[in-house]
Structure formats: structure tokens, C-alpha cells
């Protein structure tokens, strides 16, 4: 018996992996992975290049599927085992800064000559909290573009250009909907997820509304915001059933099988559509007549952790990844570096100029350390609106909850 125990123990001990000390510094870099891309391969190539440029630094890359990324990071930070450097969703920056998990990078950025204007404004803003810079923008995208199925539009006699206005979108959605044929005009979704919130926000922004005002109080009860909610509610008859548990992913499947004429997605959707046999195009968001659509910024920043023993090396790696000649090769969204982004969309995306224009005009989500709670309240708001509650009342409920967070 004792022998078996010993045997198992030794076996386990030898299996604990190569954690031996090395002369080199080993940097732990964590990133989430989008399933749409075969990104890890490019990242590995970039890491090799970085290691060649910095022979005394070895980078250990950990990629984590998005659904678990937040939990993994949180557990690691709480357990005192954070990586040295990682990508952080824009909406987590304030919380991670407030928690003391990451360090301000103002000094380093100043010394290295990294300036705000090299990046998209919304992305740079999302890395700033409480007057300090907490991360360098890594990649960005914007919610949302309205991808359209050209064949369905043609059949229903809808001109994509007409859809730019709110009324045009509704009229088009109505024409494109024919439940008897299993055809739907517009893909609404309101499951518990951030995609629900960013689409809601972009309609509120485009209608001139805001989520929080300058003082940080809820602004969803403004006429502009309530108007946007009422507009979204008026689209419900033209959306596939099951909005309250649908995600952007579900809408994509319907778009791909030609039951859905219009879907809301960021530019990240393009590679999937390119691989399909669909004849597609996209409209750059929607706004009331005469106004310009404002999208919601999404994306990731690179942050250096407070617990890292190798902050200097970590900073070097951040600089490397956001460099104009590297950034485009290591992201699956769009590089946050504007010059790299322009080259990237020209090479990899259809309608590059329109994408860049939409990015430059996009607005970030509220920069609050309690953003995740605000987001949850907004999901409830979306679900209430889509299930028929009076938009004014739904907004009042949401604002009561948001203002109670203080």
C-alpha cells in the first residue's frame, strides 16, 4: 500500500511540469481568443520576433476562450498569481485600476513618446481613468455595422442606402419580413451578454442620448435615450422570435442561412461572411434623419500588472505589440494604432474607409469601476423594452437601479 502511494506521489511529482529556474526572464502574457481567427499562429510568430529582439526575455503566451477569460483573470488576480501583462477588455480597465491590480503607464508612455493621437480616440479614452493612463490600446472594433443580404434586399425592393435613417431601417425591416416564408427583417437580440448592451448603446448614442451624464448620473431617461428605446421596440415585429435569449451569434446563423436580411455585428464578422457564399454588404449604423450614426467602441487594451516582478520587460512587450509594424499582425479585431488599422482594413476588410470613419466617430461605454453592474442593468432594460414594457417606465427603472449603485 505504502509503495503504491509512493509510486503515485513520485509519478505526480515528475508530472508537475518544467517550472525550473532559468536565467532568462519569463514574461507571462495572457490574451483571450476569438474563435473567428486562427490568431494564435500569428501571435506565436510575433512572440518569436520579440524574443529575437530581446534575447533575455522569454514570453509565455496563454490564450483563454472569451467566456472564461474574465473569471480566469479575476481568480488569478485575487489569488496573487496575475500574469505580467495581459489584454483587458476596455470595460474592465476602471475596475482593475481601482482594485490596484494594474499600474499607471503615464511615465513610461511619455518617455517612449507614445501619444494619444496614434490611436483611435475612443480606444485611448477607454484606457484612461481618474486622470491616469492604465493601458495601451491594443485592438478595437465598433458595434455595429448592419450587414445586409443583397439578394433578399433586391427581392424586397429595398435600397441599402435608405436604411441609414431610423425610419428607413424600420420601413426596410417591414418589407423584408415574411414570417410565412421564414424571413425576418432585422436581427434583434437581448440575451445576457455585452453584445446586447453595445447595440442598445449605439442606438441611444446615434439618437443623441447617453448612458451616464458628465456627473456620472444615469441619463437613460432623457428624451433622446427613451426615443431610441421606443424605436428599437418598434422593430420587434420584424425580428426572429426569441429575442430575450438570442445573441449576436444566433443571429449570425440565421443571416448565414438567408432567413435574416439584416444583422448587427462589428467588422469582425467580415471574415465569416467572406467564407460564405452570401452576396453581402454593410450599412454603417443608423441614425435619425440628417444625423450621423454613432457606434459603440469595443476592444482590448494592454495592461501591466502591479504584482509583476518584470514590469520593465512587460512594458517593452506592450510597446512591441502596439507598434505600427507589429500591431496589425497580432490582432483579430482591428489594430488600435490608427496607421496600422488603415493598412489592416485595406488588406483584410471590405469597405475599409467606411470602417475607419465609423471607428473615428464611435463613442466608448461609461468608464466606471462598476461598469459591469451598469451593463447588467442595461441588459434588464433591453429585455424589458423588447418584451413590451413602456420605454419610459423601463428607462426609469434602469436609472433608479444605476443611481442606487453609489
Amino acid at each position, binding site marked *: *500500500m505504502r509503495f*503504491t*502511494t509512493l509510486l*503515485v506521489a513520485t*509519478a*505526480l*511529482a515528475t*508530472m*508537475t*511540469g518544467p*517550472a525550473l529556474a532559468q536565467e532568462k526572464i519569463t514574461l*507571462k502574457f*495572457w490574451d*483571450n*481568443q*476569438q*474563435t*473567428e481567427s486562427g490568431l494564435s499562429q500569428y501571435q506565436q510568430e510575433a512572440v518569436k520576433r520579440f524574443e529575437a529582439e530581446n534575447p533575455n526575455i522569454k514570453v*509565455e503566451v*496563454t*490564450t483563454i*476562450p*472569451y*467566456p*472564461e477569460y474574465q*473569471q*480566469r483573470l479575476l*481568480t*488569478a488576480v*485575487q*489569488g*496573487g*498569481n496575475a500574469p505580467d501583462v495581459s489584454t483587458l477588455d476596455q470595460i474592465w480597465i476602471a475596475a482593475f485600476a481601482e482594485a490596484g491590480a494594474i499600474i499607471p503607464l503615464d511615465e513610461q508612455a511619455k518617455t517612449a513618446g507614445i501619444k494619444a493621437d496614434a490611436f483611435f480616440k475612443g480606444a485611448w479614452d477607454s484606457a484612461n481613468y481618474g486622470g491616469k493612463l492604465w493601458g495601451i490600446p491594443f485592438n478595437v472594433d465598433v458595434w455595429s455595422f448592419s450587414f445586409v443580404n443583397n439578394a433578399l434586399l433586391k427581392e424586397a425592393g429595398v435600397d441599402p442606402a435608405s436604411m441609414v435613417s431610423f425610419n428607413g431601417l424600420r420601413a426596410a425591416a417591414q418589407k423584408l419580413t415574411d414570417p410565412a416564408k*421564414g424571413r425576418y427583417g432585422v436581427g434583434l437580440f437581448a440575451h445576457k451578454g455585452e*453584445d446586447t448592451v453595445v447595440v442598445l448603446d449605439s442606438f441611444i448614442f446615434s439618437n443623441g442620448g447617453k448612458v451616464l451624464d458628465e456627473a456620472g448620473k444615469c441619463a437613460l431617461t432623457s428624451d433622446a435615450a427613451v426615443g431610441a428605446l421606443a424605436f428599437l421596440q418598434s422593430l420587434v415585429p420584424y425580428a426572429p422570435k426569441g429575442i430575450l435569449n438570442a*445573441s*449576436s*451569434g444566433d443571429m*449570425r*446563423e440565421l443571416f*448565414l*442561412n*438567408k*432567413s435574416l436580411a439584416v444583422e448587427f*455585428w462589428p467588422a*469582425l464578422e467580415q471574415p*465569416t461572411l467572406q*467564407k*460564405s*457564399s452570401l452576396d453581402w454588404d454593410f450599412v454603417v449604423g443608423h441614425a435619425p434623419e440628417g444625423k450621423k450614426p454613432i457606434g459603440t467602441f469595443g476592444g482590448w487594451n494592454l495592461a501591466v500588472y502591479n504584482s509583476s516582478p518584470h514590469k520593465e520587460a512587460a512594458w517593452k512587450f506592450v510597446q512591441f505589440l502596439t507598434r505600427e509594424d507589429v500591431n496589425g499582425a497580432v490582432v483579430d479585431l482591428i489594430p488600435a494604432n490608427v496607421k496600422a488599422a488603415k493598412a489592416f482594413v485595406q488588406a483584410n476588410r471590405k469597405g475599409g474607409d467606411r470602417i475607419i470613419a465609423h471607428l473615428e466617430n464611435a463613442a466608448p461605454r461609461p468608464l466606471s469601476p462598476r461598469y459591469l453592474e451598469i451593463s447588467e442593468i442595461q441588459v434588464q432594460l433591453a429585455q424589458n423594452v423588447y418584451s413590451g414594457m413602456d420605454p419610459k417606465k423601463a428607462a426609469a427603472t434602469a436609472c433608479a437601479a444605476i443611481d442606487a449603485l453609489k
Partner: protein
Amino acid sequence: MKARRRRARRVTLMLLNLILGLIILLPFFWMVSVSLKPAVEPFAIPARLWPENPTLENYVTAFRPEFRVYFLNSIIVSVSTVVITVTLALLAAYAFTRAQFRVLSVIMTLVIVAQMFPASAIIIPIYKMVKSANLLNTYVSLVLAYVTVTLPVAIWMLRGFMASLPLTLEEAAAIDGAGPLRTFFEIIVPLCRPGIVATAVFVLIVTWQEFLFALSFTSTKDMRTLPVGVNDFIGQYGIRYGELMASSVLISLPVILIFFLLQRQFVAGLTAGAVKG
């Protein structure tokens, strides 16, 4: 008359069997069907039971090099867990059934109900402990967690089994001059074989599909297990159903196979043991 009634009964039973089979198999059949659908072919409305152009391409994608690493990791972790859990459970179950003092029965209750804590509520404290023991990203951390999680049920299963063994066995051994340790290893353990098989299969099935600990304790790809690996196909905004279902089929196959081979012993082990309560 009687024969006709018998036949009617048989037909009814067969029909019920068919319904049961359908309930169980329909979702599986669809899973396999989705796994055979070409990635570029969109889903049909209404849903098709069988894809138009079945292909194995999803299986090729699913069986990528990482998958083989995950597979090996899963085997190492599961087998270690099964061995350790069953060993510890045998010891504890023996003590719980043979010794009869009050403190012990309280302890037994405490051990057996320990599975009532929701994993999401205790994962951070456990993570901190694993971290301070310097065991993160090791097989040991996973095996420790799995042994703890599976031990209560394993003890319960084996306890029932051991309780059914007559005390006279040990008395006879004692008369022959065998010490308690020898009695345990040479007489009790061999007699428990069906119970051991049943418990081992149970522990294997639970361990093979565990996700939360596996995700939290491992950080590099070379340490991940299969259930975590499957999640590579679930993205932020979309799911790659074909590859997900293909790798799910691949993941389930080994356990299904093992269960198929051992089902007789599994049921027999439960019969003789756990069901005695």
C-alpha cells in the same frame, strides 16, 4: 386469451422501450449530425436530421495537435484521481462500517455531505491555497481537487458495499491470526471488487467531464484537459457548432466505451453495494 394478453404486454413494453430510446438518442443523433455538417453549409430551417453533404472535416479540425495533449492530460488526471479516490474511499469506508463510535458517525456524515458546497462559492479560496502550495498549473492540483470532490460519493458507495460483507469474515481471519491490516488487504479488498469497479466508473465519469477546477487551476495549453479544450470553440459572440460537436463526440467516446465494457460490473457493483443505502 392469456397468450394474447402476454403478446399485447410485450408489444407495449417494446413500444415504451422505443420511446425511451428516442428520448435518449435523438439529441445525440443530432449532435452527431451537426458534427458532420460542412462548416460552410448554413443550418437548414426547419432543422434537418441528417446533413445534406456529410463530411468528416470537423473531426479533422477537432483532432488538432492540442486535442491530443488535452486527451493525454485528461487520461493522466482521471486515472490518478480514480486510483487515489478509490484507495482513500476504501480505507475510510472500511473504518466507517466497522468501527462504531459516535464521533466517527458524525464525521462520516460531515464527509459525505461535504459535496453540498457550491463550487463557484469556494473556488477562490481553494485557488489561493493551491497557489500558496505552489501547485498551480500542475496535475497535482487537479487531482487533489477531484479526489476531494469525488471522495464523498465514493465513500458512500463503498460503505454500502462493505456493510453487506458479514463481520464473521474478519472474526475468522482474526482467529487465523491475521492482523487488521492483513485482513483488510487480503480479505476485504478482494471481496469488494464489484464495488470498486462501480465506484471507479462513477469517479471516472465525473472527473472526465469536470470543467471549473480544470479551467481555474491550469494556465498553459499543455496542462489543459478535454472539457476545457472543447470550449475553444465557444467564442465571445458565436459558437462553432460543427467543431464543437465533433470534439464532444470524440470526448465522450472513451467513457462510453469503458462504460459499455464495464456496465455489467457497474450495475452488479451498485446492486451489491450502494443500493443497500
